[in-house]
């Protein structure tokens, strides 16, 4: 695993395939909790933590229980059950032992159970057959993408609140139009990252023997020779 590849996976899941803007996951909380910057960042941070944790657990269950027993069709029910329970358990524990953390991040946890970003990323990571390390990177990148957009968007919305907007457009409609413009900007990130050199095409053919290639020269090669002879 080269450094390039790591960067590629993180950037592509964070910017190119942004969970909110291009995959439309977690829109409810994107619109709901982005009214103030503080809660948006809190939500974003807890999503990052839960996505990484939940994806790891579900990936392990998928590959070592469901695939092994040929029970892939149970994935939705098992995943959501695990995620919901996990989140609830974490919430209770933080509430008891780290009240300050609960006040700043923990209150977002229940909302995360019904956040499709978490289940969506977990299903995609398992179904696409990623390796363990790639899955971690993918989950981290997706979570960071969520956090980034939440931050930018809450900033924009705070500014919007101060401006005068036509009455019909105020609130959610104008926020959606702003999100649209943000999506246009983010769709332009395509091409900012390139896949690793290792993925680059080598010269064809890989295993063909060199002799046979010389015995049957291509038309182009013959053309060149004839032209030169003239």
């Amino acid at each position, binding site marked *: 695993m080269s450094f390039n590849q790591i960067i590629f996976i993180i950037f592509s899941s964070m910017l190119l395939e942004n969970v909110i*803007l*291009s*995959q*439309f*996951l*977690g*829109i*409810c909380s994107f*619109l*709901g909790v982005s009214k103030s910057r503080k809660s948006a960042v809190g939500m974003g941070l807890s999503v990052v933590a839960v996505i990484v944790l939940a994806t790891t657990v579900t990936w392990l269950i998928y590959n070592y229980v469901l695939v092994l027993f040929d029970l892939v*069709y*149970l*994935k*939705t*029910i098992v995943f*959501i*059950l695990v995620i*919901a*329970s996990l989140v*609830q358990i974490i919430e209770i524990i933080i509430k008891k032992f780290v009240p300050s953390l609960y006040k700043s991040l923990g209150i977002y946890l229940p909302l995360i*159970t*019904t*956040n*499709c970003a978490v*289940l*969506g990323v977990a*299903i*995609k990571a398992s179904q696409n057959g990623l390796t363990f390390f790639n899955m971690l990177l993918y989950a981290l990148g997706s979570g960071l993408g969520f956090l980034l957009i939440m931050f930018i968007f809450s900033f924009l919305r705070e500014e919007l609140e101060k401006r005068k907007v*036509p*009455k*019909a*457009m*105020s*609130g*959610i*409609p*104008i*926020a*959606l*139009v702003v*999100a*649209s*413009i943000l*999506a*246009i900007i983010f*769709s332009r990130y395509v091409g900012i990252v390139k896949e690793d050199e290792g993925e680059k095409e080598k010269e064809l053919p890989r295993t063909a023997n060199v002799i046979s290639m010389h015995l049957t020269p291509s038309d182009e090669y013959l053309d060149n020779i004839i032209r030169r002879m003239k």
Partner: protein
Amino acid sequence: MTKKENFLKGFIKENPLFVLLLGTCPALAITTSLENAFGMGIAFIFVLVMSNTIISLINSFKKLKELIQPVRIAVYIVIIASLVTIVEMIMQAYLPDLYNSLGVFISLITVNCIVLGRAEAYASQNTVSDSVIDGISMGLGYTLALIIISLIREFLGNGTITIWGDLQINLQGVFEFLHITPISFFTSSAGAFMVLGIVLAIMQAIKNSKDAKEKEAKKQEKEVK
């Protein structure tokens, strides 16, 4: 609330997408063609009606209701998730093309706020028959909203309207008449946000003018008095 009112509320007054602003994820993601909206709507109605029925049935037994209290949400989620999985399996078997184009969003009906919201807010407190009507009403209302958005997006973005499979209405002529080409922006993700935003703005404008009229009417009433 009468049964008729209960049935009609999901369409406009309490439309889950336009008024309650729930279930926005699939509404943005899969509304690229009318066929997708239909498919999603059918799957959604099935899950919502069934989950409402089962959950109101469970809650009609007092003993059972107390028993599941600590793991209430988990039980609801298990029920909803298995209904979703059934839909998923049937769709994969008999409607594979639709299954492919809806992709992960069928599984994500599980975490759709509308389903869980209705289960908690309505089905757990009302009778079975009321919950069924509520499910049908909300499901149809949501489907209607999906259809409206997908009609706009598919027409403006592709110039076509796909009803089901190969059954397609070609409206390229309209664009040719105006000497423009379909605007592919509307099928992209940015277009989805824009269309939903504008539709919501129109809804809000209608509501605002209605409210203003009502206020005026009340004012006049007072003056008469």
